[in-house]
């Protein structure tokens, strides 16, 4: 019970992390051949790889987030610390997922000259929905913790 690897939360996060690392590694290895990376401009390749790394970093930070809450004097202080960490993580979560969508759009529309605006419009719509959806999820989680902090404040 005192080992991190035996925790249910840890197992769930580790499983998700493993899946994401595998999936994005496969994309990284095969995208160049499968999606004609050689024919795309260098900047499009760099943007895509950077976005994949951002998403993977997000997952790793997510794993770190389930690490010890630690001792911070009293409940209010500990919750405030958790709230701060959660806010930062939420921002990174939304940004990394948004960057992934933008990178995909940049990569696939890089060599398209005709109807490039269709890609831009589609990517914009997907980005809006994604950011809206993620913001709502994180907003609800932050609200619960923020309310708890308020309730233990004078």
């Amino acid at each position: 019970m005192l080992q991190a690897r035996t925790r249910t939360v840890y197992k769930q996060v580790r499983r998700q992390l493993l899946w994401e690392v595998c999936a994005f590694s496969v994309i990284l290895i095969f995208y160049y051949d499968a999606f004609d990376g050689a024919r795309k401009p260098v900047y499009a390749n760099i943007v895509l790889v950077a976005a994949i790394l951002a998403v993977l970093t997000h997952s790793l930070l997510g794993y770190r987030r389930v690490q010890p809450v630690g001792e911070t004097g009293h409940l209010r202080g500990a919750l405030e610390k958790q709230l701060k960490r959660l806010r930062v993580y939420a921002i990174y979560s939304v940004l990394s997922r948004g960057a992934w969508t933008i990178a995909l759009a940049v990569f696939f529309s890089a060599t398209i000259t005709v109807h490039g605006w269709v890609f831009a419009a589609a990517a914009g719509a997907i980005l809006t929905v994604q950011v809206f959806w993620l913001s709502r999820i994180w907003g609800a989680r932050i609200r619960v913790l923020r309310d708890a902090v308020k309730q233990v404040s004078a």
Partner: protein
Amino acid sequence: MDETTFLRLIEDHQDILYKICRVYRSAPEDRKDLFQEIVYQLWKSVPGFRGQSAFSTWMYRVALTTAIADFRKPRPPLRYVEQLPDRPGEPGNPEEARERLFRAIGALAPAEKALITLYLEDLSYREIAAITGLSENNVGVKLNRIRHKIEQLLKSHP
């Protein structure tokens, strides 16, 4: 603190952890997960325990922070019974009353649950204030409101 001492202390105070898990999680599986998570967080936080307060006081802080800060979606509470009862539960049954009280506490906000749990553990206002970071006066005011809220909840769900 070595592992053996820590586990002995956890064993001595496990009732506290069970109560916190009972208050913050409805489904038995979620309670087990939370219990496991709290013990892990306590173990990892042990270096921060300087013995300035009682072990139980420190334990409440870490356990309540873990319970409140965990945002994972809880499972729906499902209860399986071997046999359906022939008669409805007796209204005066202490077990039934206890269950009703836990249900009412379960409907409170996370921080309110923390305060009432500490209160039901017979902790003084001073001790509750030390754990939560509130002033003693504030603890009293908030507990009065919570008690009133619980009364209302018990009346509306007899």
